[in-house]
């Protein structure tokens, strides 16, 4: 952790979203891969994941993935171009904007489905 305005928050959020995505990935590989134990085992896990709290969690995972992906792009631009570091602050606000838009966009699509029970 280092102190320095937006860069600090970008770093912290990148780590937290990365660890959260990894935790989700591990659950996801196990639950989807569990189809090798047969239909009953798979569907028992899957019906639990159909519940509202888990599906709202998926919205946050989506936003986290978008943030991690575009902030990673920002890191690559900083590492490999001459102008990257000079504009890292502006690029971070762009990354935040994209993440918020992705969250709102997927919520608009997904929330009616959750409320409708589908």
């Amino acid at each position, binding site marked *: 952790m280092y102190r320095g305005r937006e860069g600090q928050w970008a770093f912290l959020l990148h780590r937290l979203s990365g*660890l959260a995505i*990894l935790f989700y*990935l591990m659950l996801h590989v196990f639950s989807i*891969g569990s*189809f090798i134990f047969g239909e009953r085992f798979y569907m028992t896990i899957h019906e639990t994941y*159909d519940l509202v709290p888990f599906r709202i969690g998926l919205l946050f995972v989506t936003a986290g993935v978008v943030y991690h*992906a575009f902030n990673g792009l920002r890191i690559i631009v900083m*590492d490999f171009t001459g102008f990257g570091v000079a504009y890292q602050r502006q690029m971070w606000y762009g990354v935040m904007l994209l993440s918020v838009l992705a969250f709102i966009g997927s919520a608009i699509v*997904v929330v009616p489905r959750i409320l409708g029970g589908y």
Partner: protein
Amino acid sequence: MIRARTFTDARQQAHSNAELHWWIFMRISGLILMFLILGHVYMTFIQVSESDATFDAVVNKLANPAWKFYNWLILSLSLLHGANGARYSIEDYVRSRPNRAWVKGVFYTVIALLFAFGTVGLFSI
């Protein structure tokens, strides 16, 4: 390339070379994963409902070798990318050497088992 006169020097250099390779790997795999995973999230969560991911749907989709390969690429790249990212965090926050050793050991074992589990699952259909 390692140019060292003592074992200690060689180990230090090899260490930094491996670090450098992981550093490059994080950038390249991240760039590839961006397309693979944003596409995957869009196709399996935004485009269709969570309720559509039934047992039959998963088995049908994975019958196609192209989807098998797509998913296996995500599985292997994201587990390596995620494991290395978590290693950075472990090295930063687990301060004592013995604790770091067993935390890493347990963590790598879980990742390896998941990779084996996912690979067997993908190619058993």
